[in-house]
């Protein structure tokens, strides 16, 4: 059992039924609209394939070569303060660079350690509580031609750091 958090298992059935009920009341052609959106999901999964191949291969090589162990040795003094695996620090850095890459790393963690392991839950929390800071800043400001971003980047990075610390704290506290 996973303790108090298991109470959230009603969330998904509730959302699905609420959305469809609302759609039916509003006379939306729910099935057709649903299918339209689901198509987008198919395309998204296909678009994710090259990212996944890149990340899986890179991590596969890195792990197989023994470089991970080496890197953990180097990085550990920096993260030992938070008592987290070096992988988690790496993931939270990747998270602010690329969304699909972070999803790929999270899935890789699930495959290696299982989604219900400590690192699996931490990875889920790290990815879920954050967004791709650099990507959003680049795309959003770029779309309207803004070059002087003022304090947007430091604020975004500060939020990333807070979310890293908060994730480690809460996952440790809830799942031990």
């Amino acid at each position, binding site marked *: 059992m*996973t303790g108090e*958090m*298991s109470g*959230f*298992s009603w*969330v998904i059935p509730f*959302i699905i039924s609420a*959305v469809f009920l*609302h*759609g039916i009341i*509003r006379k*939306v052609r729910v099935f057709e609209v649903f299918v*339209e*959106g*689901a*198509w*987008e*999901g198919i395309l*998204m999964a296909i678009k*994710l*394939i090259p990212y*996944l*191949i890149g990340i899986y*291969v*890179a991590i596969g*090589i890195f792990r*197989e*070569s*023994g*470089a991970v162990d*080496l890197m953990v040795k180097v990085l550990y003094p920096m993260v030992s303060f938070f008592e987290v695996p070096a992988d988690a620090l790496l993931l939270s850095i*990747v998270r602010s*660079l690329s969304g699909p*890459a972070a*999803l*790929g790393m*999270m899935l890789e963690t699930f*495959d290696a350690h299982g*989604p219900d392991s400590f690192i699996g*839950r931490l990875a889920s*929390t790290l*990815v*879920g*509580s*954050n*967004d791709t800071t650099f990507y959003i*800043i680049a795309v959003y400001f770029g779309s*309207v031609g803004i070059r*002087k971003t*003022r*304090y*947007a980047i430091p604020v*975004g990075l*500060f*939020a*990333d750091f*807070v*979310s890293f610390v908060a994730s480690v704290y*809460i996952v440790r506290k809830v*799942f031990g």
Partner: protein
Amino acid sequence: MNGVFSFFILGGIFVAALNGKLDSITPAVMASTESAVQRAISLMGIVSLWLGVARVAEASGLIDRMSRIIAPLFAWLFPSIPKGHPALGCILMNLSANMLGFGNAATPFGLKAMKELQKLNRHPDTATEAMCTFLAINTSGVTLVPATIIALRASAGSKNPSEVVGTILFATICSTLAAIALDYVMRILNRKRSFWG
């Protein structure tokens, strides 16, 4: 990302050569590509389900309705945007799509919001305060329902895919509050040094 990627591949092969483990690299690469494609295909169903549900929520006006509930809060966060300006509507749509965990559905609203905010900007190459606040909240990722994460956990065989909803909510609230607070401080500090809109 280019740096991280190259570092993993080149660094990995270099270390493998030093460790005398080059033989095992090729099979590891083959296995990795296979599991990457398998993973993507197993994702297809669950991601499609959520994007389908998201589209229904959008078409029925549910996302729009949720944005109305939080409208007063946004008037406080973005004092420089005139009441009833279309930028506010776009920001609300973007953030509520984000809150519901519909990452991809949020981007079009976000880009539209930037376009509207740019119309209020007197220095077109420089970000306004409202833009900075919007990005601070957006990049810290307010997520009420992390649909994608739950879906991915389920497809990876988790016994309780939604058990991380609480921890994500906690972390995301912390980082969003931190972003809003720092944005506020930076705004005050910046005003002293300059006169940007």
